[in-house]
């Protein structure tokens, strides 16, 4: 018999970005809120302080801030006629765990999605004809536009202390910025980051080739900043420990830096750690949720009654909770019926390895997760797709993320994988190599989806989430095109002796890192036949359950997700405060 906790107005599952932001907003509006976080408390001081936090083995190789794959992982296959097997360790992405979630260990790359991304199907169809989409692709328009989200992007900018130089201020292109940037109502709250040597060389070459390089926006504060919650952020010191680490400096925007200290001052807000949610409990006719059941840190099964449930777990884990709770009809790839699990995507990432002469010092350890010079000339529909025959695009950049010694051992092709020749090359190239990285959009396909695995279970005995996906030819063509462009830029850079492009190839795999941007399964949409939630993230079938985050993405943009996820969180919180509380249990119109 499960223990029952005192009822609350709103329970949020997951203490990352969306749970923290929405929880704080609703608690400030007078709702009694509890955020259930399966992991442990993690605060900048003392948890993320040096020297302990600068431990690549602990944080990256042993997944200190990642989901524990020994207790919960995903199974993986490319096609429905294959048997999926569980990922035993994280390689393809790093799902988050503990307070702050992936918002504690992210890189801080901070973009807004382009307006075209929100109307992908209609935009490309109008410009190039319906034939530009091959039949297997299930990309679909969002039920809301960039313009509607803009005020919420701006709000999230001020929460995270975004740094950058506006390229498009209220429709006016700003010299020195990114001319392809979506319009913004206000400048970034903080100036752009300092540029290390390698990105500067990239920018120089890209400019000479006629492209429009700019300094990547970031959620790493570039100066002392008091954010919209009155919380202090410090200047980034470019220590190089962003990606997969907690930030020691209070400089990288994270829920525990930017929201939670303010939320925890509200009497109506509670953050409960060690609470692993098993499912959403529905009433008898399965039309409304009653609350959630979780296992607490002592292993006691506990029921948390609530009037409203928000699913705020890491990306596609929200889709798993929907499936485990019986919310919405699961997608069937054979018939195309059902919606939950549909529209799974990742990121079509690729790279160009650059090897420099010994006079060009890269100093890869002097950087930050989001310090880069980037170009958007080949993003979204900024270039003519007509002759190319594919949809989508990607940004090309050099970022100096980390020179961490275990993972960062670049050697040119042909170098033996071990022995004295490898050692010699590893030494020769450690400070004279860096990749051009290419981050491209990724489209969903009919045969790609998320479902409950029929065989494998987690530590609590519940089915694991099964990923079935392979890239459409569209994305393989896109990657080949972008990687060739990147290779041309690499060859034009000063000091480069060798530029080796590696476009993304089929099959999609579980053993190579391709960003932690895994998306979909709870697509946002205007039509319940092709989406799980409405434009506010509200479940069509169970209107007091809301879904947040990248699970909502009907397809993936070339841009990193967090800016759009943050804007959507404020957008949903506003709709609940404004409309839902007046007519609880109804779909917001």
């Amino acid at each position, binding site marked *: 018999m499960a223990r029952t906790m005192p009822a609350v107005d709103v329970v949020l599952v997951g203490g990352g970005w969306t749970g923290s932001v929405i929880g704080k907003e609703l608690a400030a509006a007078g709702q009694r809120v509890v955020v259930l976080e399966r992991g442990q408390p993690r605060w900048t001081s003392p948890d993320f302080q040096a020297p302990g936090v600068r431990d690549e083995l602990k944080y990256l190789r042993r997944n200190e801030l990642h989901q524990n794959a020994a207790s919960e992982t995903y199974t993986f296959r490319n096609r429905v006629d294959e048997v999926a097997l569980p990922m035993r360790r994280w390689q393809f992405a790093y799902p988050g765990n503990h307070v702050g979630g992936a918002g504690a260990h992210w890189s801080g790359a901070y973009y807004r999605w382009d307006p075209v991304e929100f109307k992908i199907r209609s935009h490309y169809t109008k*410009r190039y004809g319906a034939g530009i989409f091959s039949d297997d692709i299930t990309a679909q328009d969002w039920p809301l536009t960039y313009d509607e989200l803009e005020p919420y992007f701006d709000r999230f900018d001020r929460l995270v202390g975004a740094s950058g130089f506006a390229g498009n201020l209220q429709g006016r292109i700003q010299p020195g910025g990114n001319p392809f940037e979506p319009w913004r109502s206000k400048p970034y709250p903080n100036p752009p980051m300092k540029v290390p040597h390698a*990105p500067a060389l990239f920018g*120089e070459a890209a400019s000479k080739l006629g492209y429009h390089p700019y300094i990547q926006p970031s959620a790493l504060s570039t100066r002392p900043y008091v954010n919209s919650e009155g*919380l202090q952020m*410090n200047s980034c*010191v470019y220590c190089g420990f962003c990606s997969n680490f907690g930030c020691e400096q209070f400089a990288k925007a994270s829920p525990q830096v930017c929201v939670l200290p303010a939320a925890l001052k509200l009497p109506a807000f509670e953050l409960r750690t060690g609470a692993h949610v098993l499912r959403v409990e529905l009433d008898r006719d399965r039309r409304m949720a009653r609350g959630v059941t979780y296992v607490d840190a002592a292993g006691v099964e506990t029921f948390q009654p609530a009037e409203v449930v928000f699913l705020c777990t890491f990306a596609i884990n929200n889709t798993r909770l929907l499936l485990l709770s019986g919310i919405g009809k699961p997608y069937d790839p054979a018939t195309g019926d059902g919606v939950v699990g549909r529209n799974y995507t990742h990121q079509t990432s690729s790279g160009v390895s650059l090897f420099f002469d010994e006079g060009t010092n890269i100093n890869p350890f002097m950087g930050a997760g989001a310090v880069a010079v980037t170009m958007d000339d080949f993003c979204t529909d900024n270039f003519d797709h007509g002759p190319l025959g594919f949809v989508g695009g990607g940004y090309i950049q050099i970022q100096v993320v980390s020179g961490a010694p275990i993972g960062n051992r670049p050697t040119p092709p042909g170098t033996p994988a071990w022995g004295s020749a490898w050692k010699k090359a590893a030494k020769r190239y450690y400070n004279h190599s860096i990749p051009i990285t290419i981050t491209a959009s990724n489209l969903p396909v009919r045969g790609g989806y998320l479902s409950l695995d029929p065989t494998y279970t987690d530590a609590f005995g519940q089915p694991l989430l099964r990923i079935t996906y392979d890239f459409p030819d569209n994305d393989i063509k896109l990657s080949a095109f972008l990687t060739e462009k990147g290779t041309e830029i690499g060859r034009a850079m000063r000091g480069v002796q060798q530029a080796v492009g590696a476009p993304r190839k089929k099959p999609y795999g579980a053993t190579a890192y391709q960003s932690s941007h895994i998306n979909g399964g709870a697509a946002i949409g205007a039509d319940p036949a092709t989406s799980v939630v409405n434009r506010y993230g509200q479940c069509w079938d169970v209107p007091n359950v809301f879904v947040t985050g990248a699970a909502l993405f009907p397809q993936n943009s070339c841009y990193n997700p967090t800016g759009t996820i943050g804007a959507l969180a404020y957008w949903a919180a506003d709709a609940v405060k404004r409309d839902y509380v007046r007519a609880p249990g109804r779909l917001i119109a």
Partner: protein
Amino acid sequence: MKTLALVGIAVASFSTLAVVPDFSRAPPRWQAALSTASDQGTAQAIVAQGKGSAIACAGCHGAEGIPAAGTPFPRLAGLPPEYLAKQLVDYRDGARPSPMMAPIAKALSDAEIGSLALYLGSRPVPAVKKTQAASRRGAQLAHEGDNALALPACADCHGGDDLGGGPILPPLGAQPADYTASQLRAFRSGERHGDEGAVMREMSKRMSDADIEAIATYFANR
């Protein structure tokens, strides 16, 4: 074809507006001082006898860069030459205002600044006589920070074993407590403003007088 023409116009308008960006950074001025450093003899002479209106370093900082006990002057021995050169340039340019040091720095050429920095940086670090037990607060701020104040640990940048954190991030140990406290107060008031990104100015604003004393005492005994 119509869409193609439109794209062409859009790209052209970007090109006319675009300023060809230069992403490279100008090297800091102290780098020029270090790269023009001359010989050790020059430095030794200035340390011992001064130069023109620049009085001898040894008068306050000791002949070997180690000030006499009980004085509020910083030890210079063993500090990174890059840091020392940057401080002299900052004194000269006003980023670190000081009625005592500004005239001295202004009397020195880049090459002399570089030579002094290299010479004093090469002097051995003095052994510390521990005079006072470290306070818990001092140790906390040094090695753990303070979450509520958004203060990271001093050691994050200045080094866990007091080895310093890099060329312009000085070690804090073996400095007179009065000196360290006076500098934290100077950062706090904004008077000393040579810190990149206002890192020290901002953090010191969140330190109480008692915190500043705790940090200064902690490092003086390291």
